[in-house]
């Protein structure tokens, strides 16, 4: 998910060329108070005029408490992005309050109710502790994300290269997301010139189970995709597993084994997931050719 400041026309106009799966136009922290109105207009115009193809479009609005959130929603819901992202979510009510506004605007604008999906960013200790309630708060919610910069400030610490201080938050958010059956997105890596650090962090969060990571610079996209894209070995193994299943089904055999190892349901699930990722990222197509 590529963060694009909502007041930067240059970045808005070609945000889709960098190959991120999702583009998040920001009206919140990257936009100064004096530019909130112009950013809102710019993002509205971009979403209604530019063709972002198959990219998922996300807009991070200002919180309702800030007094700007309603104006953001009034404009942005009508521009029909895929997802509205809430900042600094602390309670389930933050999501449901926002959802009510979205529904009201959808009805007023003649948009089918429920079209606009939501995503909640958790950026505080209270938010992390409420992660489960937040994750289950709305049917519109497709994912929850960690916002680490505010979170570590709230914890009275700062970010370390190893990310030890984020372990609890990451685990909570991941468990909440998995329990609710929605996506878990990891926080940004702020040191854009440290590719090694980015790779280390992305490797860690992928292993933890996160579905993706937010990026603040297009140069961070390729290294992250590389980590999340299944390797040729993974793909071949997964294909072999699916073959073995098909073979066993044909034979009506109950127990399925591959190279002397039993294949059970979780292994099949993982294999399916690997193949799905491989297909989406395009590598499977290359291999099949």
């Amino acid at each position: 998910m590529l963060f694009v400041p909502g007041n930067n026309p240059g970045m808005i106009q070609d945000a889709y060329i960098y190959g991120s799966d999702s583009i998040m136009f920001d009206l919140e922290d990257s936009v100064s108070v004096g530019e909130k109105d112009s950013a809102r207009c710019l993002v509205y115009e971009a979403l209604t005029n530019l063709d972002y193809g198959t990219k998922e479009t996300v807009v991070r609005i200002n919180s309702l408490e800030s007094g700007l959130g309603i104006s953001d929603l009034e404009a942005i819901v009508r521009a029909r992005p895929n997802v509205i992202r809430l900042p600094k979510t602390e309670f389930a009510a933050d999501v449901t309050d926002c959802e009510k506004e979205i529904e009201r605007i959808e009805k007023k604008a003649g948009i089918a109710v429920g079209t606009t999906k939501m995503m909640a960013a958790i950026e505080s200790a209270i938010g992390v502790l409420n992660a489960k309630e937040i994750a289950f708060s709305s049917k519109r919610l497709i994912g929850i994300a960690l916002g680490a910069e505010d979170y570590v400030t709230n914890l009275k610490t700062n970010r370390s290269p190893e990310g030890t201080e984020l372990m609890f938050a990451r685990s909570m958010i991941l468990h909440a997301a998995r329990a609710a059956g929605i996506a878990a997105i990891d926080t940004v890596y702020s040191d854009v010139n440290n590719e090694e650090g980015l790779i280390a962090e992305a490797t860690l969060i992928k292993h933890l189970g996160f579905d993706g990571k937010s990026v603040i610079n297009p140069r961070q996209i390729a290294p992250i995709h590389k980590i999340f894209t299944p390797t040729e070995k993974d793909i071949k193994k997964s294909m072999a597993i699916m073959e073995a299943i098909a073979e066993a089904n044909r034979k009506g055999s109950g127990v399925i084994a591959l190279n002397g190892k039993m294949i059970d349901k979780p292994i099949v699930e993982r294999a399916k997931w690997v193949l799905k990722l491989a297909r989406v990222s395009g590598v499977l197509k290359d291999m099949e050719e």
Partner: protein
Amino acid sequence: MGPFKLNDIPHINELPAIGEEFRDTKIEKHTSSLKERSEKSSKLLPSIREAIIATGLRDGMTISFHHHFRNGDYVLNMVMDEIAAMGIKNLTLAPSSLLEIHEPLIEHIKNGVIKRIETSGMRGELATAISHGLMEYPVVFRSHGGRAYAIETRRMRIDVAFLGAPSCDPFGNANGYSRENDNGVICGSMGYAKCDAQYANKVVIITDNIVPFPNAPFGIPESDVDFIVEVDKIGDPSGIMSGATRYTKNPKELIIAECAANVIEASGKLTDGFSIQMGTGGASLAVTRFLESKMQQKGIKASFALGGITGSMVSLFEKGLIKKLLDVQSFDLDAARSLINNRFHQQISASYYASPGNPGSAVNQLDIVVLSALEIDTDFNVNVLTGSDGVIRGAIGGHCDTAAGASLTIVVCPLCRGRIPTIVKSVNTITTPGKTVDVIVTEQGVAVNPRRPELEETLRKNGIEVCSSQELQEKAEKMVGIPKPIRYTDKIVGIVTYRDGSVIDVIRQVEEE
């Protein structure tokens, strides 16, 4: 042997280059040492003024300079001030190019010292003033190859060339660096100055570094040099060249560069022994980086890289991925140092580089060239000379020479720069004809010249998505709208010539706001 008479020799009158009978009273035997002769060299003159007098420069003549010192050049302004002070008028100024630092020329034009200008390009206040109608005669713009050709064919006659040199010995062997007596001012190759030295009627070397004879290796040989003047400073080293041209970190330029590298690979021209030139500009320089990994994967080497040489090319050369470097202009200190140290980094003249009169010129041996553009239109014509406001702000350089010579010419540019579209329906000024440009690579897509259907097919077959130049133009227009047309007067302020001297376009005076 024995006594003889000239008239006894059969056919004596038909044999060329034979004079009278020898007499030893006519020869002079020198007994002074090399050191003494070096001190007394008759070519060394004490001031620019004396050199100007010695060349016999007078009203109406043509003088030339080179632009290897770029924006750090002190020589041109220094000489022009002296000429103006001597009251010489109506000169034709024919430097290889002009930059921002040459703004004082405005006064010399106003005062009638300079009547006409022939150059590859110009920038800054001078260019703006000329675009606004400063001169009576239109400026003639020539490419580097076109200038060399005009000089060689004597269509452009240089009466006096004033050539700045970072090193020169007392007899005129000059170079863009010195192996032994480096005083911190270097420019690397002297490529553009070589034609001037060879063909100008009188040649003055202006240096701040007189080194012992022989200044070998030399860029300009003593046989081409008439006079030498030592001055305090020929230029500002930081303006002459920067440390190293850094790879861009701009993500958009990186995408363009990677895409261009993919196009090169898909074209099938990336094979062992290929030849290549990269233009300046972030994206085209970054192509080198992406090519490097492709070359290593394939285990292939380039036979030579040409052109303005940068540190990035030197890096590939030093890794053994490029066998030879042909250097008409060194762009950064890394390139200049390589020229000093590497045996197969060769200094070449503008004629060797790009003259259309020479079928063997290096541009004609290019497989691939990657170039930038200020504007390119749907018919693939390129403008590298005038900005979106119609004002002159660039140089033809070797753009049209390499585009014509290379078998695959790729222009890399962003679809828009800020609010200004780069891909347009029709360029302000044609400097490179569309017929010679094969592919446009932008961050938003790749377009292939419809004149090259076979290339388009090859690229598609190898996985490159190709769109039309019209689609790119429409995309740009959708993003930034249609710019207001530039308002020109009828007055022609510049003539753009193609390599062969034919007129490809004209530049008109922009209207005052």
